[in-house]
């Protein structure tokens, strides 16, 4: 989908999702169209937000993009490589697995509870036999940990000894250790408290500025998306109903669902809310 008034130069596009569709078969009679023909592009150095409610297919889309699921149809083109094609995927396996990284919503289940923080962060380096720049894997892990704002005393801890925010930092450190160009973050802050959320949002912003990677940021909280993202796509029942630059979307929503979504968010302003309540 090309938004009016915006010319996308192909060289700038990092990820190009074309007509991505994915079904889940529950049984003979019921199939759920989790993702239904969605197309969007992410440019280099851009934070692209994907919003929608639970069950709208945003997580499935992310997993299709990261090759966790093989989509029923459609293409995901990353740096000119069609990742949905098994042959092309195998040929570029190392590049795809190192330069794209995934961050999950629930840091309790995305970190193996039986591994120490050090091993968790070093795991991608071990898998791809990357020579650690800073000598040992441990010092590399220590550096990444420092980078996300934790000190080295956490290296020997297990995930359950950390709080939610710290765990999410560890997950980010793990993703960063591969110096990715695309970060897919699936609701990374949904499970965190307000004050910790702010810390993680800032962390994302800093890291993005410093490394210049692109982020596909999936969230259900529009306020976060509004603050963080450059462009936003809105998903509803598996379809991508609207894609627009953030300001445009929030000031002038086109699709009725986007409007409904925007008006449903409670704003921390009692007088405004009272007016809204009176209208309803």
């Amino acid at each position, binding site marked *: 989908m090309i938004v009016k008034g915006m010319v996308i130069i192909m060289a700038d596009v990092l990820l190009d999702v074309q007509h991505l569709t994915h079904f889940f078969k529950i049984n003979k009679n019921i199939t759920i169209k989790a993702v239904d023909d969605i197309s969007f592009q992410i440019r280099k150095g851009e934070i692209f937000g994907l919003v929608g409610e639970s069950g709208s297919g945003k997580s499935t889309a992310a997993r299709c993009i990261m090759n966790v699921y093989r989509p029923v149809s459609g293409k995901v083109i990353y740096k000119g490589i069609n990742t949905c094609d098994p042959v092309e995927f195998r040929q570029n396996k190392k590049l795809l697995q190192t330069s794209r990284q995934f961050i999950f919503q629930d840091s309790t289940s995305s970190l193996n509870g039986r591994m120490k923080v050090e091993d968790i962060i070093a795991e991608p380096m071990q898998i791809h036999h990357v020579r650690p720049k800073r000598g040992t894997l441990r010092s590399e892990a220590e550096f990444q940990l420092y980078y996300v704002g934790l000190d080295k005393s956490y290296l020997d801890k297990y995930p359950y000894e950390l709080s939610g925010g710290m765990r999410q930092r560890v997950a980010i450190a793990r993703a960063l250790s591969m110096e990715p160009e695309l970060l897919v973050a699936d609701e990374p802050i949904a499970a965190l408290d307000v004050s910790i959320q702010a810390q993680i949002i800032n962390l994302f912003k800093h890291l993005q500025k410093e490394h210049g990677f692109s982020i596909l940021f999936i969230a259900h909280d529009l306020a976060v998306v509004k603050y963080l993202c450059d462009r936003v796509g809105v998903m509803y029942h598996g379809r991508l109903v609207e894609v627009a630059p953030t300001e445009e979307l929030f000031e002038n929503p086109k699709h009725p*669902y986007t409007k409904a979504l925007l008006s449903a968010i409670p704003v921390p302003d009692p007088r405004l809310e009272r007016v809204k309540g009176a209208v309803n």
Partner: protein
Amino acid sequence: MRHKNIFLYYIQKFIVFVLSVLVLSVVVFYVSRLAPGDPLYSYYGDRVEKMSDSEREWAENQLGLNEPIHIQYIHWFANAIRGNFGISYKYKTDVIKIIGGRLPNTLILGGIGFVLIYVLALGLGILCTWYEDKWPDRLLCKIGTVTSCIPEFWLSIALIFLFSIKLKLLPSSGAYSIGNGENVIDRISHLTLPMTVVVVSHLWYYAYMIRNKLLEEVRTEYVLLAKSKGLSKKNILFKHCLRNIVPSYLSIMAISVPHILGGTYIVETVFSYPGIGTLSYESARYQDYNMLMALCILSGALVILCNIVVQIVNERIDPRMKKDEGLQVSEVIEIG
């Protein structure tokens, strides 16, 4: 799963049952043919030793023992389906007749034991849950653990030693005194010790399972809601939690059939109680494979049947298993 035709549903279950028994019989047949010993023995007994080579060959041909094993199986199966499981080497009569004579005894011991175990297990489970971590629960857990650790055979011997030999209160063997088969009181006195062993050695295992299931249930969130609407502890436990563990209770019952049956067999052997257990013990000792095969298939079929029945019951009573059915009632989001 929703089946428009309830008849089709039962047919499906029946096919599963038949297939399972079929596979079971194949396994049992092959295993018994693998066993050492001449299969001719199971038909002719000691006479085999006196046979000449030609007689032997004739006999093998007659019985189809020269044919490949799958043909043999088909022959055997064709006979078995007509109720002819061959002749017992030890008793020199039809296997099925011998089993038929012993079955009621085992059913009485195992069946009553089974019912007793389950009634008591439920009671103990509820009691322990009610008093979780208080003294009744702790005491029961301690006693239960001890009883569940005593092997059946040892408990049997200890009880025989105490009640039959020292106190001379109860008989130590058999199902009834000779010539006294119709006397109910005599039968009961013979049943008491074996029944005690069967119940005591299995009871806690299941009571503990039910206790743990119930404890899991009282840790769920809906208990809090039930509590906050003012339901009493008794009501919550009996109307909510107990109802939700019924499916697992039934499943445990189904799984336990072979377990309790096996326990009954051991007890029967120690008490020389004329049931299926002593029979299988004897047939193993005397390498009576026809008998052993029939017993395996019979026990197996019984267990499979129980499993399927419980499955059917659970699918009918547990709404959680019918999730795909019906329409989802959800909010309407007004767009625009």
